């Protein structure tokens, strides 16, 4: 790390817990010394390191060795032939962060970085504004690191996501409002209490953790950049960081540059970025979210502007799907690949399907779908949509009767 740098005007700031340029309110980003990194970060060096996101540690913003979440990342990249056949594409992969460690979502990546950096900066209390997954990861990793945690969530979240924060002993604050209201409150709190708010004052470090997903995709594909990548969009941050990850590996000579597109997926009930992209705009209009995909329900996306820019630069598309299409896509992924994704995963698979059907992702190409969270946390969303077990007495006769009834029905 060299400094924090404003993405808008380029002004530099010291590597502290601060996230906004004092002059134009632009986001601060970590600047690196790539010439120096190039000397130590080779394919061979990476291959010799532990199978976690920290194998790319030169590109992650910590000053010393990481101290929180050493086992995070390096999730499976699954060749999804059965789903590919259903969607009508030649080659398809699932980057499966539904099994990330320790809390089953891609947020484990960003939190591992944010808390490692927070400890370096001397913080003892960490906090976040979250739609659920982030709260789970902050709660768990803070517990493991011996840090005090405050997590702020909309009070109407799925039960699974609430329990998954409470169990670690975190202070869970439910806000009567949607995420954007939680976020606004947290922006005000962050200035007051001297805590490390992972996605407010620690955001420059935190957001960089998402790049590790891009590095892993390239390495796991045998050191190549996928032609198409489909990413869910809430704040839009992940999409921009996947692009940055691909760009950095090219810059460092770790992968040959090739044409790639990074497409964005949203739920129709909260689609400010997708709507703007489809209309050819470079700005978005905030919305009030109403979707079953609560983890993506951000109506005022902080990185919406940059996500639109990244899609434009990579000649990519965005699209959005309805709640019913989300549930259908969750089932499709589960039935073809044995992967149970949360609602955001349904959004990404469903939008991939739509983009392929529309020819925006050609049938003869290859694609990676990023699944960012686990279906066990959003059971509420699919309950009643996946059928019921059929009950019988423990009797062979009854089972045979059930089977023959099914054969007749079929």
């Amino acid at each position, binding site marked *: 790390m060299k400094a924090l740098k404003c993405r808008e005007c380029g002004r530099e700031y010291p590597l502290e817990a601060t996230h906004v340029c004092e002059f134009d*309110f632009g986001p601060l980003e970590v600047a690196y010394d790539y010439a120096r990194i190039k000397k130590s970060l080779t394919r061979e060096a990476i291959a010799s390191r532990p199978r976690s996101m920290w194998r790319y540690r030169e590109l992650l913003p910590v000053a010393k060795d990481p101290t929180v979440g050493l086992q995070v990342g390096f999730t499976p990249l699954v060749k999804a032939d059965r789903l590919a056949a259903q969607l009508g594409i030649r080659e398809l992969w699932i980057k499966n962060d539904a099994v990330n460690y320790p809390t089953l979502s891609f947020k484990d990546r960003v939190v591992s970085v944010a808390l490692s950096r927070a400890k370096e900066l001397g913080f003892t209390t960490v906090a976040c504004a979250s739609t659920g997954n982030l709260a789970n990861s902050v709660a768990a990793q803070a517990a493991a690191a011996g840090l005090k945690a405050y997590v702020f969530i909309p009070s109407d979240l799925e039960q699974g996501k609430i329990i998954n924060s409470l169990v670690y002993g975190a202070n869970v604050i439910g806000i009567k409002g949607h995420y954007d209201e939680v976020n*606004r409150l947290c*922006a005000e709190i962050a200035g007051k209490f001297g805590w490390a708010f992972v*996605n407010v004052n620690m*955001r420059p470090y935190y957001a960089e953790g998402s790049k590790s997903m891009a590095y892993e995709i390239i390495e796991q594909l045998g050191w190549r950049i996928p032609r198409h990548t489909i990413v869910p969009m809430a704040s839009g941050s992940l999409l921009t960081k996947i692009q940055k990850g691909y760009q950095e590996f090219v810059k460092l000579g770790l992968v040959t540059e090739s044409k790639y597109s990074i497409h964005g997926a949203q739920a129709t009930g909260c689609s400010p970025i997708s709507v703007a992209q489809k209309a050819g705009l470079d700005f978005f209009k905030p919305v*009030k979210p109403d979707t079953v995909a609560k983890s993506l329900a*951000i109506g005022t996306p902080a990185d919406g502007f940059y996500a639109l820019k990244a899609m434009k630069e990579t000649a990519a598309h965005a699209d959005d799907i309805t709640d019913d299409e989300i549930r259908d896509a969750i089932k499709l992924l589960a039935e073809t690949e044995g992967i149970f994704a949360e609602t955001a995963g349904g959004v990404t698979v469903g939008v991939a399907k739509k983009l392929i059907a529309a020819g925006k992702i050609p049938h003869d190409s290859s694609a990676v779908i990023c699944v960012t969270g686990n279906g066990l946390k959003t059971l509420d969303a699919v309950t009643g949509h996946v059928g019921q077990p059929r009950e019988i007495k423990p009797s062979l006769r009854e089972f045979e009767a059930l089977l023959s009834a099914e054969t007749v029905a079929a």
Partner: protein
Amino acid sequence: MAKIIRIPTPLRKLTNNEELVEVTAATIGDAIKELQARFPGIEERLVDEKGEVRRFVNVYVNEEDIRFLQNRATPLKDGDEISIIPAIAGG
């Protein structure tokens, strides 16, 4: 009673570290002008050359984003609380 504006940390250097500033303006646009009159330089941080609120600044009146109200023309009444918050947070 006046209207109260909460000044975000990055702008407090301009307001002599005042966190809460009272104004009498009748709209958001006028409130920004009133701030500028008292704290020269603050306007250009909040609005661009065309006079629109900057891309990375969110303004709220009583917790509602002014983009859901009438943007700069949003009327203010006595007792209203206005928050100016950097847009880059969360997610």
